[in-house]
């Protein structure tokens, strides 16, 4: 379903070229749960952003569900992102002016073509809040939530448009072990019951071990860890 072929990405940092992703190829089947591990700065986040169409590779090709991302213009790519995939970032990624439930509903605001009423979206957002255990915080602003709670809201937001793919970058970084376990359970449920594809970048062995396949990123190169 996800095919990345020979993708490379180089950044300029203080006048020096940094090759964040170096000729990486990757295939991920529909409904697969895949993990990528590696040190900070190894290029994991850049690889995830390339797969998600947040940036374009210098070379190579990325095809998701038969759609070549590089062939899409901005509007089509944005719509593709909105409909097909979603991100969970390693930092607090909530919009500070919106309440918890509004943050969860936000991706739906950019997709008016789906013919869902505001009531339906709100109902779904409330359901997701319940799943992440924060029903009582629906009207709280991010500043009124702990780091862990904010992360759980961001996870709930990732599912509002019923995406086919979740690209998660250190999704449980701020969470305690108990909450991390709950989140893993949610991921597994979504993966098994709804067939959502997961590519998870993580330092957590607990999360990495959930994956059928685990990859290591090192100096921009990707290699599968045989288990």
């Amino acid at each position: 379903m996800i095919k990345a072929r020979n993708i490379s990405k180089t950044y300029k940092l203080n006048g020096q070229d940094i090759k964040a992703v170096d000729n990486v190829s990757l295939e991920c089947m529909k409904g697969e749960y895949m993990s990528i591990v590696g040190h900070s700065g190894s290029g994991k986040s850049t690889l995830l952003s390339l797969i998600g169409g947040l940036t374009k590779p210098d070379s190579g090709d990325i095809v998701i569900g038969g759609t070549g991302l590089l062939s899409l213009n901005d509007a089509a790519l944005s719509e593709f992102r909105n409909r097909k995939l979603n991100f969970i970032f390693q930092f607090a990624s909530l919009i500070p002016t919106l309440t918890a439930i509004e943050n969860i509903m936000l991706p739906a605001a950019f997709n008016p073509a789906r013919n869902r009423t505001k009531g339906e979206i709100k109902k779904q957002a409330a359901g997701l809040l319940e799943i992440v255990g924060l029903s009582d915080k629906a009207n709280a602003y991010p500043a009124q939530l702990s780091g862990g709670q904010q992360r759980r809201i961001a996870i709930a937001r990732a599912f509002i448009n019923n995406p086919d793919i979740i690209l998660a970058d250190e999704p449980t970084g701020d969470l305690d072990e108990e909450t991390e376990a709950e989140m893993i359970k949610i991921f597994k449920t979504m993966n098994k019951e709804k067939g959502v594809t997961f590519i998870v970048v993580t330092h957590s062995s607990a999360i990495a071990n959930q994956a059928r396949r685990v990859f290591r990123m090192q100096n921009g190169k990707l290699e599968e860890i045989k288990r």
Partner: protein
Amino acid sequence: MRIPYLAVKNITRKPFRSIALILSVALVSGLLFAGAISMKGVLTSISLGAKKLGADLMVVPEGHEDKVRTTLIAGKPAPVYMPSDILDKVRGVKGVKQASPQLFIKAAVYPCCTDVDAILIAFDPLTDFTVSPWLKDALDRPLRKDEVIIGRSIPVEKGAEMTFYGKALTVAGYLSDTGFEYIDHGVFMTFETAREMIKQSKEKAKEPLKITEDSISAVLVQMDPSVSSERGAVFVEYEVKGVRAIAAQDVVGAVKAQLLVLLKILLSVGFALWTVTLVLITVVFSMIVNERQREIGIIRSLGAKKQSVFSLITLEALIISAIGGGLGIGAGGIILYLLKKPVMAAFKLPYLWPDNTFIISAGAGTLLVAVITGIVAVFYPAFRCSRMEPYEAIRKGE
């Protein structure tokens, strides 16, 4: 939840900054709106006044033309006198079609209304062609002896009595508002009434009037259509010694010249403030965009198009400038309404509040300028951030 909702939420994020931007737009809009209303008010007033004056020329004693101009524009009574035989001389000048005398008398402050100036104006109903036509608007019969018609700035009811120099006069009617002080502060009476008042003042008034029986203040002249006002003025001054002929156009021209000075000041200040506001909005929104880079990256990652980001930033500026514009128009209008009299008096300009159509048009125009200012000012920051690659925005914002 839609883009406008996000825009409003963003505006309320830093209230002090938003209020500062709103106030700066309000200041420019208020100045623009008040300026437009002021200019229109003065122009309406002067053109209406000149029309109501109804004469091509006003012939006055030489050396007193400035005083008469002040009387016409500012309504400050400046009694000047000349012998009545001037009237016949003027009638004999080539190109003069009609001529009628007027007499200006400085009114003693009348008992009821101590803080309002009035100018007493006598006219000759038999030869008059300037006052009579618009007296018909206020009175459907000839003005009788001991009756007066008053301007709108004199707060006396129809039928009431006013006493000047010991003579009681009945208010037969009042004229509509012109903004032209000569008319709005005028108390119009026949020569017969005025002569009797002068006579009685010697016995009844504390300060008797020292105006001789044969005095007049001005001769109002209507020229033959084939002779321009300017040429008529030259003819009169050439043929009648000791007088000056003021063309109605001169009065309008003098006011327009004053107006031009006021307009230049207003435009200079307005343009400087507009430039500052434009730069301010651009700088503030550039800062806002820099502050929110990561958020913009996140929104883009959630599926927002470049166009949505551009719309979001532009809409914020549009809302701020529209609120600022609205506030400015409201505040400018109120301040102008409260201060129009002292300001116009300071500039010695007549003033008439423009009609509602003009006020609405000026308000809409000002609002449009405010909104366009906001959009123009924010265009570059909005364009720049909408073009940013989502991942680059997220990384730079970290």
